[in-house]
């Protein structure tokens, strides 16, 4: 049993070290990169919304151009349609900025 406990202790040390390194990495990421990543993702989301609007605008009553070619792109847009509509049609007022 004591041998077993010793082994666990030995194995536990590198695990702890790993956790410390991971936590340090997390802190570094949070301090240096998280903002940039979030910003890049937000920009991508805006680009994605813009892309959806200029291709599938008809769905929201914004007829941009003939849908013949939009239909070619429709299969790729199917998974994002719901989120996109919610994002675009969400009402925004002053209380939104409080939360």
């Amino acid at each position, binding site marked *: 049993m004591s041998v077993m406990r010793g082994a666990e202790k030995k194995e536990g040390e590198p695990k702890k070290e790993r956790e410390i390194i991971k936590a340090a990495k997390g802190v570094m990421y949070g301090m240096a990169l998280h903002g940039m*990543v979030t910003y890049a993702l937000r920009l991508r989301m805006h*680009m994605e919304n813009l892309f959806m609007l*200029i291709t599938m605008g008809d769905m929201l009553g914004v*007829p941009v151009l003939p849908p*013949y070619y939009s239909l070619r792109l429709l*299969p790729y847009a199917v*998974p994002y349609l719901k989120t996109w509509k919610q994002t675009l049609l969400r009402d925004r007022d002053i209380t939104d900025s409080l939360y």
Partner: protein
Amino acid sequence: MTTAVSATQNMGLYLASNPGVKYILFGGKGGLGKTTLSAATSYWLAKQGKKVCVFSTDPQASLTDIFERKIFGQGEVEIAKNLYALEIDADKRIAEYQNEIRQKIRDMYKMETIPEEVEDYINSSSAEPAMAESATFDAMVELMTSGRYDYYVFDMMPHGHAIRFLGMADILDQWVAKIMEVRKKAGEYKESASVLGSQKGGLAQEDYVLKELEFIRDRLDFVSNMVRDKTHTAFFYVLIPELMPILDTRKALEMFRAFDVTVSGVVVNQVYPQELRDSGGVPDFLKHKIDSQQEYLGQIKGEFADLIRGVVPMLDREPKGLEMIGRVAGILFGDSGVFLR
């Protein structure tokens, strides 16, 4: 006084001196004989041993009536040796296209039924007026890129639509370029996020979307380049000796110039023979009509002299059936001179 007026360079000579021409387009106001002249040109080329396809982009297509064969919605129909005709059923093509999209969605997401909002969008798209034009446009590109024929003769829709049709390629081209820009930027941001934050990338999907956009852009570019390419394309404008068609032709030449499209020539159709006026027993009504036409012919001669490629008289019978089409072809590609007072 009579003055001999003939085509400065008739259709046959024009095609002979422009051997690179592969696409021949006939435009003009509705009801002036674009379909007849397209059919006659195709007939003549086929008789010269060239494999030709005549395609009507006019929603009120009448190749079926002219060739007295069922062509509408039948694909490429063989009319005679080397001569094929195509009249697309835009509604049928749109329905087939919509079904392809539905099937693609089912296959991509292993769906039994299409989500309601997607189905609604697909269904409502067929109600868009530009859908028929786009479907015709697509069919036209498909035919031209097939490379199956020596010559492609297009009976274009009436002037206003033709301009819009050509303009549509440019507008859509710019639209696709913008979308590609947006798409590429979105991809870059996603990639940056992946590199910085070890997020899972979605680039495979981006690639598919970009490939689709490139496919659309290539098709649009093909048409934009084709209509402007003087080496491979000849654009003929059809008019009759009346005021409105003359004004329309004048306007069209300006508009096509704005699109950087060069009109290769004009063909004057439905001209009453001058000798008819001088023969006995001609009612005043017809005499006045002939006089009026002569006056306008003078105007056409003055305004479009170098562009006149043919003068086709009003025939004693409706130009229907291969025999009559052959007769028109003989006039158009043979001696097309008429006499002016």
